[in-house]
């Protein structure tokens, strides 16, 4: 599913973010990526949807080698990878419905299918009654659910979340985690970079710890392992 082989990443400004990463993530896994700030978590995550290219080594996602994928193919790769951000990245001028439909419009889905799929994912995230609301009218947790809905609306095989609960209070965070759990239960691979010790230690999943650009720990049903 996701395979990294001796991956190095040095940015143009000379900062080395990843220093030889080897990893194998199977379809349907739920993986936490943990580690101190600046350890390379974000870079690791960005490699999977080709927001960054590795300096060295291979990143293989869905049998596609992203290290030498053609620029033209990138959009098609991304249709298989949903991304959720800490700051939601919703378009404030569009309604909830339009924000989600947007993801299907750009991949030229037929209008009838769009309607159906949008309502389906809004059911999944439990916001079917908010279609006409604008993002600013919703709470942080609700906005994050909309962004999750957008990430999963085209049925991607992988969902990547970069600190999805970073801006949310604990109660809301649990709601979000339940949503992820539900998506994962349907077979979608979930990769989540997080700083939340509580979440990692309570909802036990595979934990990959990255420090100084290398994997220092990789445990199934692992612990967060850092003191805050």
């Amino acid at each position: 599913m996701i395979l990294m082989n001796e991956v190095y990443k040095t940015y143009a400004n000379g900062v080395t973010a990843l220093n030889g990463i080897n990893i194998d993530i199977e379809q349907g896994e739920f993986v936490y990526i943990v580690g101190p700030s600046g350890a390379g978590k974000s870079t690791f995550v960005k490699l999977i949807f080709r927001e960054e290219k590795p300096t060295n080594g291979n990143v293989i996602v869905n049998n596609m080698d992203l290290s030498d994928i053609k620029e033209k193919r990138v959009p098609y790769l991304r249709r298989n990878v949903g991304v959720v951000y800490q700051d939601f990245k919703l378009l404030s001028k569009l309604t909830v419905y339009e924000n989600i439909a947007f993801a299907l419009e750009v991949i030229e889905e037929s209008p009838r299918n769009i309607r159906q799929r949008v309502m389906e994912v809004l059911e999944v995230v439990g916001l079917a009654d908010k279609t006409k609301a604008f993002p600013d009218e919703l709470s942080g947790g609700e906005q994050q659910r909309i962004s999750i809905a957008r990430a999963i609306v085209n049925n991607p095989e992988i969902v990547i979340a970069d600190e999805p609960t970073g801006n949310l209070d604990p109660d809301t965070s649990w709601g979000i985690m339940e949503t992820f759990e539900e998506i994962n239960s349907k077979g979608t691979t979930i990769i989540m970079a997080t700083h939340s010790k509580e979440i990692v230690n309570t909802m036990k999943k595979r934990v990959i710890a990255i420090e100084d650009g290398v994997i220092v720990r990789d445990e199934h049903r692992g612990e967060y392992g850092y003191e805050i």
Partner: protein
Amino acid sequence: MKFSTFKRHLREGLKNIFRNGWMTVASVGAVTVTLILVGAFLALMLNLNQMATKVEEDVEIDVLIDPTSDEGDITALGEKIKKLDQVDTAVFSSKDEELKKLIKSFGEEGQSWELYEQDNPLRHVYIVQAKQPKDTIKVAKKIEGFDSVEEVIYGKDVVKRLFEFNKYARNIGLALIAGLVFTAIFLISNTIKITIMARSKEIGIMKLVGATNGFIRWPFFIEGMFLGILGSIIPITFILTGYYYIDHNVQDKITYHFVDILPFYPFAWQLSLIILLIGTVIGIWGSVMSVRKFLKV
């Protein structure tokens, strides 16, 4: 592309024109100013070109025949001239015909010349036209060397200068137009760039959810096209009304034959079409150029 997608691009492109308000006005203004200048230049250049071509075509060589030569000499000279490769026509005109032409060209005042009908001081001539106007000088030089030729008149320097002037005028005109068009493209791409800054988040999300670059570019393409078309409206109105005025009023006051301007129909319409095309290209190019940077995410 699906029809529903095309409708979406059209909708988005048009929406952006209104959404960008003053920036749209600024872009359209830049196109308008450029096109007015380009239009005026083109009208001037094409007319000059037309006149020049006409003058060039009208350049003839008058071969004055030595009055001592007899009919046989004259025919022989005619044959010789016609045999030259570069010569198109060589028409004989007797001195009586020449005098009549002269009298006619002076109109009313020409009557005083009728006195000369008794004792015509003019010469028989061959009016020679070269196949290529630019060969005129060469042909004239050759004829000068023939027997029975008294003088060859062709306005040496005028012809030479005319050809050179035409060449420069065309090149300078083209360079100016190219310069103006590039300035406009630059201005538009900058104005649109400012509006795209505001939309960069939207573009980022589009890329994130798997939109192709082509898909993202389309609305900008349409927006640019409309900016170009909007920018052409005022220049085209200018051209049509302005040229109509010149054609109908000024033309009558100019009596010299050789400054016949190109007729309003079809010239003004053709020019309008060219302006519309240039405007559209400027708009599209400027717009698409400014998105390029934002697509490298």
